[in-house]
Structure formats: C-alpha cells, structure tokens
C-alpha cells in the first residue's frame, strides 16, 4: 500500500496571518505618520469603538461559513436600540429590556433561517426582507430618535475598566467573550464542525448524516442573537435608539469578515480573522480621522484605496507563501 502524504501546509491559516501582518504594518505606518497614534489607548479605542462590529462579525462569520449571507444585521442593530430605548422609556427594568432585545433578535434570525432552510428562499433575499422588516419596525415604534436615560444602561455605558495605562469598557469585555465562545463552538463542538461541513459541501454534509438543516437554521439564529447583542452594545455606545442607526453596517461587517480571510462561498475562515478584519477597517477609520484634512469625497476615495491596499497586500502575502510551498495551481 502506498503512503500518500500531501505536503502538510498551514495554508488555511495564511489569510488570517496575512491580514494580521497587514494590520500591524498599517498600524505601524500610522504611528510613524501621526503624532499620538502609537498609544495603547488608540488600540483600546479600536476595540471600544468597534466592540459591536466585532460581535456582528462573529455572527456573520457563522453565516458565511455555511455559505450564506445575512444582510439584516445592521437593521437588527437599529431595531435592538429602538426596542431597548422604547422599553426603557416605558419603564421596563434593564434586565428585562435586554432579554427582550436578545429574544427579538434571535426570533428574527430563526424566522429567516426557517425561510432559508425550509422554504429554500435564497439567503440574500430572505435576509434582505428581514432587513426591510427590522428597519420598518423601528419606524413603527418611533420615527424620532429616543434617548436612553436608564441609570443601569448609563452606568454600563460610561463605566470604564482601567488596565494599566489604558482603559476599556464593558462592551469590549463582552465582545471578547463572544469571540472566545464562538471560537470554542466553531472548533470544539459538533455544531461548529457541522457549520464548516455545510459550507464545504451542503449536500455531502446531508448525505453524511449530519444535521445540516438544523445547523443552517442555527447560524441565522446565532447571527440574529449576535445582532441583538451588538445592538445592545450599540445602545450602550450611543445611549439612544434610532431607526437610522447602523445604516449600511451589514456591508462593513461582510467586508470585515471577508478581509479576515473567510471565503464567501463558505467552509473556510476563522472568527479570529473576522476580528482582525474589524480592526483593519477600524484602523482605516482612525487614520482618516487623524488625517484631519480630507474633504468628504477624498475620505471616501481614501477608504476605498486603503481597503484595496489591504486586500492586495494580503493576497500578495498569501500568494507568496503558496508559491514558496509549490501549492499554486493556475
């Protein structure tokens, strides 16, 4: 019997590593260029300002790993802030409000998941409809923005946790916990591995006797839950509920996940990559605000160019490595 051992490559980690390298490089470039950039607090702010994006990216990673997509996340964030603000205004206690928000997000996710799995509606439309619905519900609750005056919410929002020189917020802690838990689920539980299997080849996964259907619905529930949680973090961040919050955020999240090395076709990617992806996009924003001289249109152009530079650099690194390992096949 012949022994067959294809070259063992950590090639699946390459995109994540590449993204991380690019992130470090950019951050270094920012530090050289801008005074006050290379401070611990800037890094901490990167997490503080993007905690909700990190949570969203985690949920989106689950969905994209199965080969689906969730366009509703931005709208669910807005809806969550709206429900939170409205419920608190109506005098609900903070814990009940939070539960209600998380439940709403999960139920919306469940609805979309069932539509996708049971009725075989394409994820793109099912979640687009979900997006319309969630945003529409915001305006049904209130057209105006509602501010959150609840002391518990305010306390969570303004409290900071000192860590040596820098300080972070509770949102950051929540986001990091979510990441850790998601990584655990994806890599060490049957559910997580089935997520990858479904993304690799759905019909094979079904024929292998895996619970493909349950997993497919499950990832949308997770994404809905993460969106609601991100919505809560967002309401800590904003202390307000508003139907126009987080417009277009779904694209940011998808971009972050994909920049982090996850393939939209499913089956390949890591939550950690998505986190780095979020940090990369956050760094772009930070650079833009440090630059401070860009007009509105140059802002857009520079964001586009930086995004391109990131991806190009990432691809370059990945390709280099692949070539060195004799893996390229074109």
């Amino acid at each position, binding site marked *: 019997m012949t022994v067959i051992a294809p070259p063992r490559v950590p090639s699946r980690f390459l995109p994540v590593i590449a993204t991380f390298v690019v992130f470090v490089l950019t951050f270094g470039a920012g530090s050289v260029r801008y005074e006050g950039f290379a401070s611990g607090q800037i890094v901490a702010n990167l997490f503080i300002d993007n905690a909700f994006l990190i949570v969203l990216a985690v949920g989106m990673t689950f969905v994209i790993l199965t080969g689906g997509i969730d366009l509703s996340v931005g709208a669910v964030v807005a809806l969550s802030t709206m429900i939170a603000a409205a419920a608190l205004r109506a005098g609900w206690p903070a814990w009940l409000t939070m539960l209600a928000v998380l439940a709403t997000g999960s139920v919306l996710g469940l609805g979309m998941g069932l539509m996708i799995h049971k009725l075989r509606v394409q994820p793109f439309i099912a979640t687009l409809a979900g997006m319309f619905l969630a945003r529409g519900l915001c305006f049904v609750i209130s057209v*105006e*923005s509602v501010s959150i005056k609840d002391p518990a919410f305010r306390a969570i929002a303004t409290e900071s946790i000192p860590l040596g020189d820098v300080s972070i*917020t509770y949102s950051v802690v929540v986001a990091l916990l979510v990441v850790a838990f998601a990584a655990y689920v994806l890599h060490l539980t049957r559910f997580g591995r089935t997520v990858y299997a479904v993304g690799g080849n759905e019909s094979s996964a079904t024929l292998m006797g895996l619970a493909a259907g349950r997993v497919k619905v499950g990832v949308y529930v997770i994404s809905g839950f993460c969106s609601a949680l991100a919505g809560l973090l967002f309401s800590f961040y*904003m202390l*307000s509920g*508003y139907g126009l919050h987080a417009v277009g955020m779904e694209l940011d999240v998808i971009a972050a996940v994909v920049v982090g090395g996850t393939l939209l076709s499913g089956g390949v990617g890591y939550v950690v990559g998505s986190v780095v992806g979020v940090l990369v996009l956050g760094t772009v924003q930070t650079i833009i605000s440090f630059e401070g001289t860009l*007009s*509105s249109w140059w802002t857009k152009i520079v964001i586009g160019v930086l995004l391109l530079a990131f991806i190009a650099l990432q691809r370059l690194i990945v390709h280099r490595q692949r070539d060195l390992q004799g893996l390229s096949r074109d």
Partner: protein
Amino acid sequence: ACGEGGSGGAAAGDDGTITIGFAQVGAESGWRTANTKSIQEAAEAAGIELKFSDAQQRQENQIRAIRSYVQQRVDVIAFSPVVETGWDTVLLEAKRANIPVILTDRAVDSDDTSLYETFLGSDFVEEGRKAGEWLVENATGPQKVVELQGTTGAAPAIDRKEGFEEVIASRPDIEIVASQTGDFTRSGGKQVMEAFLRSTPDIDVVYAHNDDMGLGAIEAIKAAGKVPGKDIKIITVDAVKAGMEALAAGEINFIVECNPLLGEQLMELAKKVVAGEEVPERVVTEETTFTQEEAKAALPDRQY
C-alpha cells in the same frame, strides 16, 4: 476615562494657534457641502487650524472622530450631530479632557447642558412654521396640500413637518391630502410627485422639506402638463442656488432659508470659548425667507 491629565491643547498651546476638530455629518447634500466649505474657509481666514472629518452620515463614525480629537488634544471640538441623541458618553470624555464642545446645526438631547458650551444653528421647527405661515396668509379658499417629506426619521424632516402642521392647524380648510418621503432628493421628489399627480386630483400646494425635492416636483408637474408656481403652488425650505433660481423664475412660490454658512460665527465662538469668555447658550443663525421678488433681488449675491 481617556486622556486624563493633559489639560489644555498640546497640539496648539505652543504657538498660540487654535486647533478645532470639526466632525461633519457627511456630504449628503449640496447644503451640507456649502456648510463644510464655509467652515473651512472661515477657519483659514481666522487663522485657525481645522481638523476636519467626514462621518459618512454615521453617528458612530462621528463619535470615533470626536474621540480621536480628544486623543489629539485639540482646543475646541465642534460637530453637527447626525442625531440628537446618544452623545453623552463621548461628550463626557471631552469634558473630562477639558476640551470645550460647540454644537452646530442641531442640538443634542441631553439633560446635562454642561457637556457643551453652546449651540449654533437653525431651528427646523421654526422653518416649518414659517412655511406654514406663508401659506396661511396667502391662501384664499380651501387648499389641498401634498407634502414631500425628507428622509424618514431624519430630524429636519420631523421638525419641518411638525412646525408646518402646527401652523396650518389654525385653518381647517387647508388640508394635507398626501404625505410621502422623497428622501431629500430630486429624483425622489419627482417620482413621488408623479404618483401624487395620478392618485390625487386637484392638488393646490406642494410643501417640500427641501429645495431638491421641490425641483423634482417641478419636473413632474411640468411633465403632467401643468404650470408649477401657478396651477400648483410650491413651498420649499433651504434656499440653495438652484432653488432660488426657480423661485426667481416663478416656478417656486416661497422658500424658507436654512443657512449653511455658519463658518464665521463658529470661528468667533471658538475664539471666545478658548479665551474663556462667556458665550450664550444658544446662537441662532441669521435666516430669512424669500418670496419671488425677494429672490430676484437676492440672487446675484448668493454664494451657494
């Protein structure tokens, strides 16, 4: 939390120039662009260093920008809030870092007024009222009004509607028969107006929350074979150049000004705030209204 210790502006203190960090909403309309331009030009004229950032209509980007201004220790932070709510946390950070904040264009909804020094800007409800008053004064007999709202949920849209409705409530014969959002855009205004013209016969008045939607409505009215300004009266808000031209040409009947040129006033306020002088809590921009004749007279001097 952030930036304890450093009081006063490291970025500026040394050579005496003032640094302002200005967090703009975006560049979503011609009005906004004029606003940005005015601030940039005024800063240059006043010898103030301006750090400008564009939030692409996103509050979180604006918060991020303000946070980075705190980090960069600017002398004054000014911004046009995207939304009224949700500023407490970041403004608190600025306050802790001893950086004064000036609001432009729109107030924030906070119980703690110590978070900002002053608010410079227009009053959208008042604009709606002015539009309503003109109609009430000039309407002879019952009027069917259609309203082209701004983006659903946007503050100017809500307030301009509110002010207008408040005033016309005094006249039971003036009735809003249809109201729909045209998203503040010309094509939105045109499409909505087309549909109104088909579904609602005998429209007397169009009230558009900004000039652009009004201009779109004019196109739709013309295409339907009617004469804008005569068969159907048009009231808009903003007074951008294209609107003023249409007003002068008799296609619009009345425009309520919403002045974007806040630059000079802002720079003056900033200087005062840095110098530690008292500033009023509320500074209203000078705004007026235009009839067709006034427009003809004012048009040659309009900057935007």
